[in-house]
């Protein structure tokens, strides 16, 4: 055992330097050089250079005049990007049904005329609690409410939703989706 100690210790130190210092340093250097925005969190800025959020991290929305994103299970407030978390509620947990009922009710209160079934992603918590996107169906579901609240024509919002919809990557990967923060920022821009 003693004869193995020396190579074990020295090789461990060398491999640590190689994989724990040099490798992350090379990746950081190249990523900062090639993809400076992405490597730092994909932060967005407005015309004045002020940071408005991250295009990859969702934000909490609950006013009737904004599109709402996925429910978030992070603590102590929704969309806490410093502590990602899912709800971990199991499919047969009564607490899941209660939470979903409350979310459906909130949507109905905000838009009593809307009798359409609620798209499932709008009333279920995302895996990360930071999901920046909703399905196009969930955006469509909210167009009339936002249009009424803001007093603008639904067609304008429809166009805005379409402009902020990403289709499947390379035509087949993943799912079509709408970035809620980008959509709301674009909408706020419109009304200013």
């Amino acid at each position: 055992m003693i004869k193995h100690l020396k190579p074990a210790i020295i090789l461990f130190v060398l491999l640590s330097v190689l994989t724990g210092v040099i490798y992350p340093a090379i990746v950081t250097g190249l990523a900062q050089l090639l993809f400076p925005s992405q490597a730092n969190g994909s932060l967005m800025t407005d015309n004045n250079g002020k940071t408005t959020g991250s295009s990859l991290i969702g934000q909490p929305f609950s006013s009737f005049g904004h599109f709402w994103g996925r429910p978030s299970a992070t603590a102590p407030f929704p969309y806490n990007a410093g502590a990602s978390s899912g709800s971990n509620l199991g499919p047969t947990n009564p607490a899941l049904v209660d939470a979903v009922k409350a979310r459906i009710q909130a949507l109905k209160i905000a838009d009593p005329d809307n009798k359409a079934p609620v798209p499932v992603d709008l009333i279920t918590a995302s895996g990360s609690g930071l999901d920046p996107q909703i399905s196009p169906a969930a955006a469509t579901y909210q167009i009339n409410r936002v249009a009424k609240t803001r007093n603008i024509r639904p067609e304008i919002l429809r166009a805005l939703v379409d402009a902020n919809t990403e289709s499947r990557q390379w035509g087949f990967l993943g799912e079509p989706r709408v970035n809620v923060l980008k959509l709301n920022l674009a909408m706020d821009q419109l009304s200013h």
Partner: protein
Amino acid sequence: MTSNSYFQVIVYVVTLLALAKPLGWYMARVYEGESVGLNRLLAPIERLMYRLSGVNPKEEMRWTDYAVGLLVFNLLGALAVFALQRLQASLPFNPQHLSGISPDSAFNTAASFATNTNWQGYSGEVTMSYLTQILGLTVQNFVSAATGMAVLVALIRGFTRRNVDTIGNFWVDLTRSTLYILMPLSLILALVLAGQGVVQTFNSYQAVPLVETVSYEQPKLGVDGVALQDAGGKPVMESVEAKEQVVAVGPAASQVAIKQLGTNGGGFFNVNSAHPLENPTPLSNFLEMLSILLIPGALCYTFGMMVGDTRQGWAILTAMTLVFVVLVFIAVPAEQSGNPALAALSVDQSASISQSGGNMEGKETRFGITNSALWAVVTTAASNGSVNAMHDSFTPIGGMVPMWLMQIGEVIFGGVGSGLYGMIMFAIVAVFVSGLMIGRTPEYLGKKIEAYEMKMAAITILIPPLMVLGGTALAVMVEVGKASVFNPGAHGFSEVLYAFSSAGNNNGSAFGGISANTPFYNTLLGLAMLFSRFWLAVPVLAIAGSLAAKKKVPVGLGTLPTHTPLFIALLIGTVLMVGALTFVPALALGPVVEHLQMIGAK
């Protein structure tokens, strides 16, 4: 399942199989010490490492030396990770000023990363400093993977050599796995991921303004920093308004790349690859998912090449792929069918061109049902354990598939190296059983399988179930075990069973509702991980040593060919029989009961 859903699964499987041959060929050359394209750059580094550490790369080891070297090296790794966690508060690269980690949690994480399990008892962004992440966790991601690959290569040499008592040099296999295979692949993957939006920075967390402020309640702290309590002993709450959001960042891309390629699975962030900064786009998702099975799949071809008959490798790869594909087509429809309890509430769970529908609790919009369920099968087929959706919120059947994949021993692709050496153990059992049936001495790849090999193979197959079932039984009997359960009823039992299935097979994924960061679970799961890793690796090396010493038996009339469809069926049958007989009773108490309750409640 939609046609797009089928298409995404098919593209994944085809890409995976197409890469098996080129990468498998490359790895075989690396392990046979032949020159590969990267030699000019890496050979000087390799030689320097041997010179500094006093290793003679030409020197061969007996299996006992190989095993001792492996154990000493992994012990050092675990100690280093433990020390880094305990001391991180006073070490550099800790911009968030995170404090040191409790001894039981530090032990659990050290065991977890040294054993290639990468179970996360902690929450990355609120617990681990950047230094712990790169110098502790990233390093173990590399070397624990390289350790598994080294054991596999030693086992293969047992089959190819005859009448010798050595099986290679552990230091060389370890170094070459890291230097020539894991590092170059990780570098490429890390950069592509960074381009997609995975963060890679040493800056502190970024505060960004919220468009809408949110108010929330939090416990009010007194001047001494202790939470105030009212007369009834309840905490006094105060209302706080959040005007900004602090976005956790860090050197994630470099770690995520090796986390996937080395079948490690420990995320940089708490929610692992569900986090938009760890897995931002469908393309990053595809590549991360591909990387999980890339090396385990290709190693089958490496195996075939090294034993001089590539059909042997294809046979095992075929067996793995068949089981894998069948389980994908169970898990995806189970998740796509949604939750009956929500269907009653006028919720639209149907798949259409404008939504993925299905059981979306705990899933991300960009991945939808197909990529979340496919990932769950991939990550538990391999001993990876990273997640891109919360398995705890899966439907009972959708959650049972990953649980069972772990329980059958992580041999359907499995961990890098460990998956294939586990599968070869099953192949040894399969030829033994068939040898009994046709009345011949069992042999595999020209080596007689005798009592010693069978004993060792039986140990490797029996240790994980012992950890899983024994651990689960203990945890559900004691109060500290039951107190950590989050969901009620049968699902709560599933949480405990899943935790021990994961630790006892070195996977690392979880039904995350369980509060496993307690001294009880940290200790018990940590021990399960250690036993399941090293009580398998050492018997496998013993088999390697025993086989290397044997002479080669010429192929005769009574030899069972091990590259035919018959043998593939026999191998699958052996894996499934062991897995089914051992775990069906436990599964009946968890996911099966829950499924019946769920569909019966309509």
